[in-house]
């Protein structure tokens, strides 16, 4: 769903994220603005440690059109904030999205 004048504006659009992975491919750090992960110490882009991965799921859809394949991670950040990340397995890009 694209945004623009005279169109519907999508809510909760995924934002690109830089994610650091461990040896098995699980996210361990995410680089994002402090405000985005619920912290108030300025608006500096800095890596935040992921304390735990609470849940993981995969979505494969629209294979008949333009395939969407994502693996979602619901994670707990250092400091207690909860976040949903996903990796677009087609483009191998990471995104962050509100739960």
């Amino acid at each position, binding site marked *: *769903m694209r945004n623009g004048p*005279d*169109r*519907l*504006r*999508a*809510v*909760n*659009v*995924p934002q690109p994220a830089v994610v650091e992975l461990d040896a098995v491919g699980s996210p361990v750090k995410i680089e994002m603005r402090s405000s985005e992960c619920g912290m108030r110490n300025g608006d500096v882009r800095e890596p935040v440690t992921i304390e735990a991965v609470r849940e993981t799921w995969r*979505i494969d*859809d629209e294979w008949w059109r333009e395939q*969407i394949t994502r693996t979602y991670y619901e994670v707990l950040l250092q400091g207690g904030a909860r976040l*949903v990340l996903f990796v677009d397995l087609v483009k191998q890009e990471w995104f962050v*999205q*509100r739960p």
Partner: protein
Amino acid sequence: MTRTPRLTSDTAACCWIPLFALRCETARRPELASLPLALLAPDDTRRLWQVAPLARRSGVKPGMTVSQAIGLCPALKLCEPDPVHYDEQFARLVAALVTVSPVVEPVELGRVFVGTDGLEGLYGEPEGIVEAILMRSAECGMRNLPNAECGMGNAECKGRRREANDPSLKFRNPQSAFRIGWGIGKFVSWVAATRAKPGEAVIVPVGGEAKFLASQRLAVLPLDPDTHRRLLQLGVKTLGALVALPEEAVVSQFGRAGRRLWRFAAGLVSEPVVGRVVPEPIVAALTFFTPVGDRDLLAHALDKLVDRALGDPRRSGWRVQVVRVHAELEHGASWLVAATLKDPAATRERIAAPLKTQLERSPPAGAVERLVVEFTAFAPGTAELQLFARDAGAAARAGRRRALQSAAREIALRIRRPMLYHVIEVQPWSRFPERRYALIDFEP
């Protein structure tokens, strides 16, 4: 015992503006005319109510959910409905038609029957009557309702429509979306209106009803879907084909409803247009315990009296056009003000506003002992208006929407760009969070 006089007319002109609400929106915001546009339903904003032809070409239909419609037409422009505005516009049209004939029967938004019995003396043949109706509708601004079949030019639009059959006559007012059908009874005039091109009229001469109806499709009959399907399965596609069957055979298949349909199709049913008698003046009065000179208190009392008069059952279905206030003052003096509303209204704010202005400008010369509000002239409303008037919840919603619109206008003036959005469900069941909800511009 007094008998209520009945206003009826056997000959009828059906005035029809299809997609009336949608046209009101495009008249108000012409930039929408070239977009694939749809109005959200007033009672369920997840569904579509009226759909412009440009959007229909993408497969969008009324009653669809927003998500279905967006799936078919991603560029679809959605508008929130403003039923009060549509109602006001329709009331203007009805008020204009009352100046042509006293027998006027509004049926739904955009469709109204005008009784034309006895108008020959004023306007001559039906052609003259139709011309008078077209002129009045143009004078009240209905000509401005665009005949944009959304994106389709007039010439192209006309080219795509078939000419109406003989023996009908046609009149042309190409700027208008107005269609008129004239004939004996409401059914014939309605079918004629559906055959008319935008801005034109189809006149069915007296005695020519059966011939005119014979070529019309079954869908013009008031049929339920099952009967429609069964008739099609029997090979009956036109009213002429239905009439060709023996009446008793149709009755044996479809019962009493079949007889009614057969008689409609044969042009034997002629339902007259039934107008309404304008109510007598409605009066609400208040006697104060002690004479009142305070203007705020008088304004408050005025509000209460207008409310009480609006609540009179005789007012239902009518808008107030002329209102008078008179006061009995201390020491035998009196005070009188009157207001004629340019746009007849059925809301306290709009009726009381000119009275309060006059109260400020020329207040009573002494303290008021008794205050009387009188509605002395009325303009017809619509069935929808009656619904709004009865449904306090709907009225409150309309009031809140107006307040919100006013606030939105102020915000837009201050920050100079639209920053207000309305959240709608698009695909709430979607596995992709970004597809579940969306924002549309909140445009006052």
